[in-house]
């Protein structure tokens, strides 16, 4: 995952394109993803991003990114598909309860949304992997006349994404070393076991909730998890 937002030095057509072209391309792709709402256009758009990544000769490095996004999209797909009630029912989860059912329209819309999500989240990594930060700053300041401090702020925040990812990786490894089951292959368990780490990141910022002095015995539902659920 550490390659997100990192420049990958390659000799390719895409790398040699003007940074402005690539910036507009990524904004254009994002814009299109909002304009389109049918499944096939969004799927085509997503595969065009994959094709660009392939042309930039960095498909191999992008695979983990696409894979991560895919699981993320899958998760939202599962939520979405249940929320859309119109259309021909394909499957009713609880017999007799019309609320929880999967319809053909639901499947189409949820899949389209999944592709939209993947398009939005994958075009920027492609831009950043093919364009050096300094080139991007120069373009933002000189061509687009964005005040230097804003361009600097924008670039700095991007610059820290790999650092944060690295910190996250360290935290995950440290918790795994304490038998925290983050290395489970099951995506759902992974999600739930990640919650306390989110709490840890919030703790880092310094906000502390009320504390009680004793240990919580049940490994599955300790208070921070219920905290997170309560705040949802």
């Amino acid at each position: 995952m550490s390659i997100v937002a990192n420049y990958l030095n390659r000799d390719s057509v895409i790398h040699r394109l003007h940074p402005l072209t690539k910036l507009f391309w990524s904004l254009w792709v994002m814009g299109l993803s909002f304009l389109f709402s049918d499944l096939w256009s969004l799927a085509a758009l997503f595969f065009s991003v994959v094709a660009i990544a392939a042309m930039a000769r960095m498909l191999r490095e992008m695979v983990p990114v696409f894979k991560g996004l895919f699981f993320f999209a899958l998760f939202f797909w599962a939520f979405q598909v249940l929320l859309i009630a119109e259309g021909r029912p394909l499957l009713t989860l609880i017999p007799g309860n019309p609320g929880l059912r999967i319809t053909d329209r639901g499947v189409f819309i949820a899949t389209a949304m999944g592709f939209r999500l993947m398009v939005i989240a994958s075009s920027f990594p492609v831009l950043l992997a093919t364009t050096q930060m300094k080139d991007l700053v120069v373009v933002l300041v000189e061509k687009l006349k964005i005040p230097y401090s804003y361009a600097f702020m924008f670039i700095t925040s991007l610059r820290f994404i790999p650092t944060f990812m690295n910190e996250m990786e360290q935290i995950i490894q440290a918790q795994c070393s304490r038998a925290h089951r983050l290395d489970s292959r099951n995506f759902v368990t992974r999600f739930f076991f990640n919650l306390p780490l989110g709490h840890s990141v919030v703790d880092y910022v310094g906000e502390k909730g009320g504390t009680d002095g004793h240990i919580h015995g049940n490994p599955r539902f300790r208070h921070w998890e219920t905290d997170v659920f309560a705040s949802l």
Partner: protein
Amino acid sequence: MIKVEQLTFAYPNGMPVLENLSFEIKSGEFVALIGQNGAGKTTLLKQFNGLLKPTGGTVRIDGIDTRNSTTGILAQKVGFLFQNPDHQIFLPTVAQEIGFGPANLGCSREEIDRRVREAAAQVGLEPYLNENPLFLSKGQRQRVAFASLLSMRPQVMVLDEPTTGQDYREGIEIMEMVKALHRQGHTVIFVTHDMELVARYAERVIVLSQGRILMDDTCRRVFYQPDVLRRTNLFPPQIPTLVQKFDCYQEDFGTPLSVEELYATITGCGGEEYVHCS
């Protein structure tokens, strides 16, 4: 305890970091792993608790092939202290922090409480059990992280640069704690750039250079081969360096590692009697 056979490892993105390493660490050893930055020390340590799995060869912990296990399971055998304790700490009290590991292992509440008290006693944290770890000093936070591993009762303790960024006294305190554990029978493997600490605590030294083992010997023999060490930009501690300035060191001085040992050879007074001599 740890058996490494023809271990080769490369990160997904590139060149091999570890190349064809084979060695064994027996139960109860006190091993220092040294080498330049980027030599692959951290990468090697992470093989011991399955955070990284070999791309070639095998790593066996207590007979278990790490490839057939998970870090969660190996955590009961190998405790891994990260360089930065803040990556480990995230709960609102020291007691909860120490109890997190045993809770993950599914221990009962009484068992967790017992282990928390025991681990806290081992590192001298009893007065702080209800404090927020974030408000403790760096050295104390290191202890919290340490205790939170001890509470899982691992036989092996792996420490990645435990004293980096600490002052001299904090560094020694941590190492004394580790030494006490070693005396209780734990196997200890630590990484450090401080050669004085190596000379003072380690029995065996593994020198890693560009992913290969350059030397694997007793502390004494490693520090009395400065030519080999220098190839990887490491220098022996001051006493061996001084002794080797005298050409005749072989016969007259032996191979002292500390001021005490050198003093004892010069005055002809045995090591233990040093205290009375001075």
